[in-house]
């Protein structure tokens, strides 16, 4: 296991037709926009790069590729190798309300072929976006149909491509992006082992490790009775709750959303106790325990003691030059 620190920058392409909602998603997940602010975004010109540091030695190098025809043409021809080489993940966004779904899929196939040529081992995630515009009762079926159609045009990625329905108006966005992040984290199992040990020591029902800026979950540990928690979508729900709360605090205190962090949040009820605290430079830990003051106090002490071990897995402490692409 000598290679934990090897893969640092992971290139992620974000593609799809102009207006599909790529930049909206990116701004909400990575730049603290709220859903209703995205109307202010202008069409993306060429490629916009962002670097996002994650726990576990991962830096996302996100390429938001403007979807207007001229740009796409350019990606596929003059910039073909530049854009499509060494890609770890392609996220392709489909607008569910698109007026020309067939053209979208043809364009997708062209992208897929370029990807196959330059990064055959990449992973493809397709997001069927703006699902909020479809009436709730028809969502499942519409999604199913669209998915089948797109899969059939996925060529070499047919068997591995994953599909997620998304909307910026609910937590589905977090669900999809959490999957992407999890796929990219190189040392997820090391982190999980450490978390499991910690959970044991503090007698936690559940631990959720999430990244502080995006509020995306890195991983979680669930123990005992909590495994039957009926809210199986709770991880993305919590991401969404915390993100919204962060924005609310930022708005009220006048602190920029990027740094509007609480030092601690606690909730105590007769059924459970819960708190969120800083774990490392880039991560917070959400802890759920039985309703007991003893357990609560002991847990806080033990987490403080465990911090250095997690810090070793986190790259945020070390500053490094960011690759300049263009």
């Amino acid at each position, binding site marked *: 296991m000598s290679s934990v620190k090897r893969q640092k920058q992971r290139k992620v392409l974000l593609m799809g037709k102009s207006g599909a909602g790529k930049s909206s998603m990116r701004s909400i997940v990575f730049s603290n926009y709220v859903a209703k602010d995205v109307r202010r975004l202008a069409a993306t010109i060429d490629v916009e790069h962002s670097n996002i540091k994650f726990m576990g030695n991962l830096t996302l190098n996100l390429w938001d590729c403007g979807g207007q025809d001229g740009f796409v043409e350019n990606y596929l021809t003059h910039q073909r190798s530049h854009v499509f080489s060494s890609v770890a993940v392609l996220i392709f966004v489909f607008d569910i309300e698109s007026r020309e779904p067939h053209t979208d899929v043809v364009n997708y196939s062209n992208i897929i072929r370029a990807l196959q040529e330059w990064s055959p081992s990449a992973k493809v995630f397709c997001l069927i976006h703006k699902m909020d515009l479809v009436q709730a009762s028809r969502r499942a079926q519409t999604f199913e149909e669209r998915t089948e159609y797109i899969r059939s045009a996925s060529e070499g990625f047919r068997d591995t491509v994953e599909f997620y329905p998304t909307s910026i108006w609910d937590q589905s966005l977090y669900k999809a992006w959490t999957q992407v992040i999890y796929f990219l984290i190189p040392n997820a199992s090391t982190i999980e082992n450490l978390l499991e040990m910690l959970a044991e020591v503090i*007698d936690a*029902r559940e631990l959720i490790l999430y990244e502080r800026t995006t509020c995306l979950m890195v991983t979680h540990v669930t123990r*005992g009775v909590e495994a039957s928690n009926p809210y199986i979508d709770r991880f993305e729900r919590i991401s969404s709750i915390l993100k*919204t709360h962060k924005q609310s605090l930022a708005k009220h*205190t006048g602190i920029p959303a990027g740094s509007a962090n609480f030092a601690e949040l606690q909730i105590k009820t*007769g059924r459970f106790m819960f708190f969120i605290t800083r774990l490392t430079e880039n991560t917070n830990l959400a802890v759920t325990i039985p309703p007991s003051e003893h*357990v609560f106090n002991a847990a806080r002490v033990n987490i403080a003691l465990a911090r250095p071990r997690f810090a070793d897995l986190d790259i945020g402490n070390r500053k490094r030059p960011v690759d300049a692409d263009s």
Partner: protein
Amino acid sequence: TGKIPNTKTGDGKPRLLLMGQRRSGKSSISSVVFNKLAPSETLYLETTHRIHKESMHSFMDFQVWDLPAHIDYSDPAFDTEDIFSDISALIWVIDAQDEYYDAIQRLNTTILRLQESHPSIIIAVFVHKVDGLSEDYRTDTFRDIVQRVQDELCDAGFENAPVNFYQTSIYDHSIFEAFSKVIQKLIPELPSLEALLDALCASCRIEKAYLFDVLSKIYVATDTSPTDIGSYEICSDYIDVVVDISEIYGWERDEAEAAAEADDGGAVGDSGNKDAESLITMEKHGNNYLYLREINKYLALICIMGEDSATERKALIDYNVRVFQEALNRVFSR
């Protein structure tokens, strides 16, 4: 005294009547505030043809009636006595994005009518859908509507009509704030609640304290220091966090399993606190934080702590909150 909730007249419950032109947003408002419908889902609501009644059981019971746009007052079948009552509030919804001339006409006719039959009814005008308007245009539209309504009432010989105006949208907190203010007018105990909250703020150096109805996120009362929508928003958002997380982790556990967990967890039950409690400490302003405490089944106290209300004084806060809680439960003894 005439206006005590839960005493007789008809079914005795205060009523909130939503009226206004078609597509002005009445059903949307009622669904968003009382049924938690997502604002974007209101696009699919159909036109209301008959009175839709919604009962709210909370710290006090009240009803929300969503009325169809075109009530024909001359129709003998339509009995105003049946609809309006002395303990109700009329909320007139005007679509600020649409032509509002007719709406104002109808509103004024209604106000003048009610002035004769139910002089003590509370009247509120929601200048609605303001989210679609630019800042300037919004202010102008609002002023214009207020002016027109008042001028016409004045012409009809009715000066200083007790009508309150609010700018609202279902896409932000404004609709909840406006509803809060209307409902507060139906609570006879309001002055005592405000006095209790003032006392609490003074003794714990709390910046702002709200008493919230947790389910609807309407605030029942706040201390008498100036209120701004920002404080309301942060408290309302905070309730969401606590309610959502409590839902996620407060699920019914199997008794036996939970007990087994309690055994090896050691002393469960040592907390003894059945009422949910929550606290947020900020990173940058070390002292600044939010505090929430369940007061009873329906109500929660939410406080914004100021720079000098330090966390170390938590014990003092706990004590004063308990005093507040007891006093409050005497006010609403149910």
